[in-house]
Every structure is written in C-alpha cells, then in structure tokens.
C-alpha cells in the first residue's frame, strides 16, 4: 500500500491513543509527562500531514507545529520544576501521595 495521508493519520491517531492509555494507567508524574509528550507529538504529525497533502500552497500547519513545539518545551520545563519541588516536599512523585495542593 502506497503511504499517503490516511497512513499518516493512522499513525498519528494510534500515537495519540497510546499517549492517552499511558496517561490513564501511569501513576508517576514523570511517566505521565512522557505520555503527554506523545500526545503532543501525534498532534504535530497530524498538522504536518494535512499541510503536506491537503494545503501544500500554504504553510499554516508548519507554523502551528513550530508554535506547538515551543509551547510544549515551556510546558515540560514548568512541569519538571513542579515535579522537583513536589519531590522535595513529599519525597515522592506518585500522584496518589500528592493529595493536598498546598503544603
């Protein structure tokens, strides 16, 4: 089968739901963050695939991808700062142990 838009959308949807599965089952904050990264990457793949196969005359999907990557980097940095702070106060990064919002 010649790969085209549908194959790319299949990969992207599969990756999205792999990320969602990880988000449901994991209870460790770092692994949950990894699942979110997978979801964001699947969205980026979707944008690029649509840009290449449906709107090759414009580059809007490409710019959306660039901005999503920038915001994902900022999000990961803030999340890891929060995780390290949580570890300092609770000695654990399991979401089951982080019950109160303020220590």
């Amino acid at each position: 089968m010649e790969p085209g838009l549908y194959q790319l959308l299949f990969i992207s949807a599969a990756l999205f739901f792999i990320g969602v599965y990880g988000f449901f089952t994991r209870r460790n904050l770092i692994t949950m963050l990894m699942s979110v990264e997978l979801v964001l990457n699947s969205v980026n793949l979707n944008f690029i695939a649509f840009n290449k196969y449906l709107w090759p005359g414009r580059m809007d999907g490409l710019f959306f991808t660039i901005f999503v990557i920038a915001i994902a980097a900022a999000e990961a940095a803030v999340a890891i700062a929060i995780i390290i702070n949580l570890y300092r106060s609770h000695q654990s990064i399991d979401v089951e142990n982080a019950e109160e919002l303020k220590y």
Partner: protein
Amino acid sequence: MKGATIIFYLLATLTLVCGVLSVTTRQIFRAAIYLLFSLIGIAGLYFWMDYQFIAAVQIVVYVGGIVVLIIFSIFLTQQAGEKLPKQRIDRKIFSALAVFCAFALTMLQLYQHTFYETADEPVPATVANIGNRMLSVKEGGYALPFEVVSILLLAALIGCIVIAMRDKTMNIEQGTLNKEVEKGK
C-alpha cells in the same frame, strides 16, 4: 515496493512500537529511552515528508532538550534500579478497552471521510520561505504569534526558576543544621 514505502513503514513501526513500550515498561529509565526512539521515529517521518526544518527542530528541541530534561529529573527523583509499582489489572483493562474503542471510532470516521486537496501551487518549505512568513507583518504573516511565544518562553523560564528555587528560610535551616552537625562532631 519502492524504497520510500519501505522506509515509511519502518519509521512507522519504530514510532508505534517504541511508543507502546514507553507507556507499558515498568522501568522508568527505559520508558524515557523508548520515548527518545519514538520521537526520533517521528523526526524521520518529517524527513520522509520533506519537511527538513521541522525534523531538525524536532530533533533539537525534543530529542536534545525535553528528553534530556526528563532523564535529569529521573536521576534527581528516582532510586536506581527501582521498578514502578504494578498497576491494578482492572484499571489497565478498562483503560485499554476505552482507548481501543475510541481509536476504532476515530479510524471508522476517518476512512468514511473523503478529503479534498486544494489545487494551489505547492510552496516548498525551505528555511528562507519559513523565515519570510514567520517575520512578516502582512496578511498571513506570523510576527505577532512569534512575539507572543517569545514572551511565553521568557515567562516559563522565570517561572521555572522561581518554582524550583529553594526557599531562603529552608537554606538557613539547612545551614544551621549543618553547623550543629559540625559542632556535634
């Protein structure tokens, strides 16, 4: 079968298999490494689609930045060789079922839908074209989002430092504690 097709399916397999392993393995360090290979597979798919700039950004920001950050935080918070606790089996089954149903629904919708291409002349995604569009203030330019994102990155940078900074009081307590320990010796 053409070479490009084979490469596409190899990259797709790499991405999906490493993604699945990354969310199912019980060793957190391995999860990070599988995530790394999954992201490299996606960068390969961008190369395959002829979007070299996005592929390079993906490798620099994700593979070189975010995964390294995640690995550092694993080193800071996790004991070596410790496995993640086992999940309850019912939670796993329900999540897998929900995810599979949603995936099947999405794919069903997708294959019933027909997409229409526009007949525009393709614009090559070269760095020069991207740069001109990115900093253009005319219609279709992205100068305003570019500036907004730069402010956001600055805010995130300062926010991270403030959140992760040790309290001054905590430092003082630590200092007095250390002095007491030294006196005790």
